[in-house]
């Protein structure tokens, strides 16, 4: 058997699944969003769904909110993750414990984190009770709205909680494979600690940080259950809005829902571009 044949056969089952389920799902979705479904007699594709999506104020509010959630969560998590990785690089009392909790946290599903945040930050949650204990608030309503709030603070807190370890573990591994030689050289040439970090270490770890951040951004932009638990009703995050439209009793809203899903897919295609640019070396193993 020739190598070409061998490679083809080895790849066939996996590619079949990915092409049929993943790309097939996307393609069927795209067709439905254009109201093109020959099977059920819709043979005239049109832009109706996109027109009603793009003329709906709620869509823009949702999009802006979702972008805010994804962007803010990603930036805060990345910065804190770099800090955490710098911390974990050195030995100190409790490092083993932090390391272990870091990894434990990686395995806890987002949904559990979201419920935990709800119990911590809601107006009758643990922090509100603590505030009441110290007479800072008179009733639950005095506690600032951190969940179901218009700024999505609860959602962002949950993502930051979950993504610091994710980005941190990747950055830490990056730092460990780079070693400390470059920094030692910079230090011996008179660079300050900050200069060493800013001009030596940061550029070295940046591709790793970026590829992890892209994954986080795409995930936080497209996740459903976290904003569904912690988010306000209006405007809702885009995936929540899409799901609501899809499951609306009015079946005519379905193409609109799918059009929103396609918008999410297009945005993640942009993310893939960045991911591939910065993470090629990691795939090659």
């Amino acid at each position, binding site marked *: 058997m020739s190598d070409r044949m061998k490679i083809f056969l080895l790849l066939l089952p996996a590619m079949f699944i990915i092409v049929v389920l*993943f790309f097939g799902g996307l393609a069927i979705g795209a067709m439905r969003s254009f109201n093109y479904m020959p099977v059920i007699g819709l043979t005239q594709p049109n832009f109706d769904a996109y027109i009603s999506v793009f003329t709906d104020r709620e869509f823009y509010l949702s999009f802006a909110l979702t972008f805010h959630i994804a962007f803010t969560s990603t930036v805060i998590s990345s910065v804190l993750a770099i800090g955490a990785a710098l911390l974990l690089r050195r030995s100190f009392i409790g490092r083993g414990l932090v390391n272990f909790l870091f990894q434990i946290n990686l395995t806890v599903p987002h949904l559990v984190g979201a419920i935990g945040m709800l119990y911590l930050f809601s107006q009758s949650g643990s922090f509100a009770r603590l505030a009441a204990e110290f007479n800072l608030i008179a009733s639950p309503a005095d506690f600032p709205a951190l969940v179901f709030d218009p700024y999505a603070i609860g959602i962002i807190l949950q993502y930051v909680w979950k993504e610091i370890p*994710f980005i941190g573990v990747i950055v830490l591994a990056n730092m460990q494979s780079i070693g400390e030689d470059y920094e030692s050289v910079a230090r011996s040439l008179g660079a300050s600690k900050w200069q060493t970090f800013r001009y030596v270490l940061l550029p070295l770890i940046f591709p790793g940080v970026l590829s992890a951040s892209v994954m986080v951004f795409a995930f936080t932009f*497209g996740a459903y259950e976290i904003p569904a638990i912690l988010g306000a009703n209006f405007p809702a995050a885009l995936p929540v809005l899409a799901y609501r439209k899809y499951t609306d009793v009015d079946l005519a809203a379905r193409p609109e829902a799918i059009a929103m899903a396609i918008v999410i897919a297009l945005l993640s295609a942009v993310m893939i571009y960045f991911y591939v640019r910065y993470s090629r070396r990691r795939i090659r193993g």
Partner: protein
Amino acid sequence: MATQESLGMRSFRVLTGAVLITWLILPLIPLAIWSFAKGWFYPDLLPRNWSMRAWEYAMSDTAGVLDSLWLTIWISLVATFLSILVGVPAGRALGMYKFRGKEIVELMILAPTIVPGIAVVLGIHSVFISMGLNNTVHGVILVHLIPTLPYMVLVMAGIFSNYDPAFEAQARSLGASPLKTFWYVTLPAIRPGIIVGGLFAFLVSWSQYILTLLIGGGRVETLPLLLFNFATSGRNDITGAIGMIYILPGIIILLLTAKHLSGRSGAVGGFGQI
């Protein structure tokens, strides 16, 4: 470098370490307390009455929590098994060969790790309806392959890129059949990859919510769906108990794989999906 550090710097580290530890375990604490609480009303910092009621409910045969647990385990196990079956050969092709179009194949396999499930699943849903796969366990297992398979392939590609096929050739020249060669030569060499990739695939499937909700149509009630329903209906005590049950496999898996795990492995990306 560490020896030159001042006492101030060292205590700063311990302090930030302590803050980090607190932050990392904080959200799990109210869940754990709720599961043993019998009513826990504002503004009590701790429940006045403790009880095992939520746990008794979760463990009872009639509540459906255990059924849901077995169903979730079954779905994740089958999705993992299929991912291994399909992912190992693909990993071999990507890890051991250079070929035209390889970059495109890699990109296609990577794409599902970035594109959110909701973007894909709405299209799949309408196809599954016409195939009768919606609202079935089979349908749910199939869609779980979308997020699980890529990690299996990535991990195996990493393993096979450090793999020497000469051993296989030797076994064959000594008269071993292809099956025996695979069983006695290839499999032992790639086993660590299969274990780590498989555990990741299991966890990724274990944490799926929206794919299960849409394709299962609420009829395939896995643990995350049950957890979500209890959380949004205000049964905090039962939510706490189910939450604790739900995170257990991840912790067990972590304890099993800690020594294999490093941020350098392609598998760690899988954590981004959980």
